[in-house]
């Protein structure tokens, strides 16, 4: 027993610490990508600001997005109102942060919906395989070819405009690519040597799935999820811009940009600040996603 242990002890001088896992490798690669790290930090900053900013504004200054400053109606940026005020004298900074809350909430929930549907559908298709798989994927092909924007418009116009419907409609559009990616991964992984090796070593099916399949599928899923969030935000903002998404008294970045575009001839700041923050967030999400893709070495997010 002691002899066997001695054989696998590392030669002196070389510290045989724990092997580097896939995740440690990925983290090391991600850290080197300065742009991606910067974007992630900035995103966290925007997220925290949107999450807590309105609360601070309320308790410290007694101000919400609905509080009107009757003296400073439609005033440009000043020391008192950093982003200026809108035509009703509401502070634009607070409104932008509150809009961000709504936009980010919609983005996260709708992405979650897409994630749940996509992963379970794709994993089922890939795991079952055979004829059921090819029919399930035929359905995805057909859904892919449908003009979903039209259906989202049809749904939201026809059936009132509530938030639950918005989450479901957007989630229903975005799950298809996720299903394809997961299915392809599961299908190829199940046939690979290391899974076969694990099976011949007598590892139970449950362990194979959790130790070998899930960690390998997780990479592409994480990458594609981060890239889905900006797509969802774009869709939500587009719908809100058309007046079909978030409804007053709630506002999101889409409705603020719509407001700003209507007033841009005289009040440039009403368009510039919400549009600027929105674009910055999209930029950061895209780069954080790209960085993750490189770090986790995912071949292609989209097929």
């Amino acid at each position, binding site marked *: 027993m002691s002899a066997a242990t001695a054989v696998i002890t590392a030669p002196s001088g070389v510290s045989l610490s724990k092997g580097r896992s896939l995740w440690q490798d990925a983290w090391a690669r991600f850290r080197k990508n300065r742009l991606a790290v910067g974007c992630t930090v900035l995103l966290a900053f925007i997220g925290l600001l949107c999450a807590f900013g309105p609360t601070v504004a309320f308790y410290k200054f007694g101000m919400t997005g609905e509080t009107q400053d009757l003296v400073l109606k439609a005033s440009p940026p000043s020391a008192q109102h950093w982003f200026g005020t809108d035509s009703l004298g509401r502070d634009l900074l607070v409104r932008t942060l509150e809009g961000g809350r709504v936009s980010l909430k919609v983005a996260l929930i709708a992405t979650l919906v897409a994630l749940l549907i996509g992963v379970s559908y794709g994993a089922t298709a890939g795991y079952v395989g055979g004829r059921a798989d090819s029919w399930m994927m035929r359905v995805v*092909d*057909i859904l892919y*070819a*449908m*003009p979903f*924007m*039209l*259906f989202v*418009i*049809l*749904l939201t*116009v*026809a*059936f009132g405009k509530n938030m639950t419907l918005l989450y479901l409609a957007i989630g229903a559009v975005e799950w298809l690519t996720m299903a394809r990616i997961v299915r392809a991964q599961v299908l190829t992984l199940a046939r690979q040597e290391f899974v076969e090796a694990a099976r011949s070593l007598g590892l139970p099916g449950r362990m194979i799935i959790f130790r070998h399949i899930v960690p390998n599928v997780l990479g592409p899923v994480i990458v594609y999820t981060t890239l889905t969030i900006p797509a969802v935000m*774009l869709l939500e*903002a*587009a719908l809100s*811009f*058309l007046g*079909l998404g978030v409804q007053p008294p709630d506002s999101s970045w*889409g409705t603020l*940009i*719509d407001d*700003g*575009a209507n007033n*841009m*001839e005289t009040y*440039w700041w009403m*368009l510039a600040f919400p*549009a600027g923050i*929105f*674009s*910055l967030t*999209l*930029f950061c999400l*895209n780069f954080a996603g790209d960085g993750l893709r490189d770090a986790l070495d995912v071949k292609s997010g989209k097929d």
Partner: protein
Amino acid sequence: MLRFTLSRLVQAIVVVFVVFTLTFFMIRLAPGSPFATGEKQMPEEVMEMMKRSYGMNKPVYQQYFGAIGNYLQGDFMPSMKYEGRANAKIILDAFPVSLTIGISALLIALGIGLPAGIIAAVKRNTFLDYSAMSLALIGICLPTFVMGPFLALYFGIKLEWFNVAGWFSPTDWVLPSVTMGLIYAAYIARLTRGGMLEILNQDFIRTARAKGVPGWKIVVFHALKGGLLPVVAFLGPALAGITTGSFIIEKIFNLPGLGQHVINAVFNRDYTLTLATVVFYTSLLVAVNFLTDVLIAWLNPKVRLA
């Protein structure tokens, strides 16, 4: 190749049929009716007459099969809200506006995106590459409804080169097309660069270089055909994006295009016009997707076998 084409054709027809059916029933499930939404209520008898004239007194399944019959004969039926106007006429009046903008946007996108992507790939990791790609970034994080108002503000209001809204003067297509074109130019530049880089690293390019073929000839005659595959594959989705994106563009620049009709038709519960516009858009997209699929299969035999 024939087998592939036929299977894609069947798939395209299935898509149009599914969309037709879904739209037909979904709009009827929505609360309200085409005749009840007005300031003054119609008397019962008039309402009955209106319903009869559109065949809405029949059971829904009969209406459904009747509509299928009409569409198969190329009859898009009359509008329920715009009295006495055929849906086909409404679409034909509005579509040229959307088409003009869509096509010029696509041309602008290809005209800027292709050269930028090719140059970036050939001059990889140089200043040219970095500047082309950072420009492409702007297109990716500035959506149409941000870029459009800014372009309108600068070129329309400040410089007064173009009208900010409407469809009256012969230069009114410029701002909407440029707005959409720039965004797609960014995607096309990225795709072109990626596709070209992959091809330029392959052995047959090295062989050509070793034989002494001049650089520009390698790019134009050897690399371009394979390198542009991702761009061709993107053209279908791009056209889909451009046509649906036209909803937003039409709103920003206040254009009398087809997108406005779709939204208004659904708002008014104009059952027949909703069906006609949605089926029209779908057929258009499906047809474009079908053509790009066949084109890709022809360019790249591997796809046919998949």
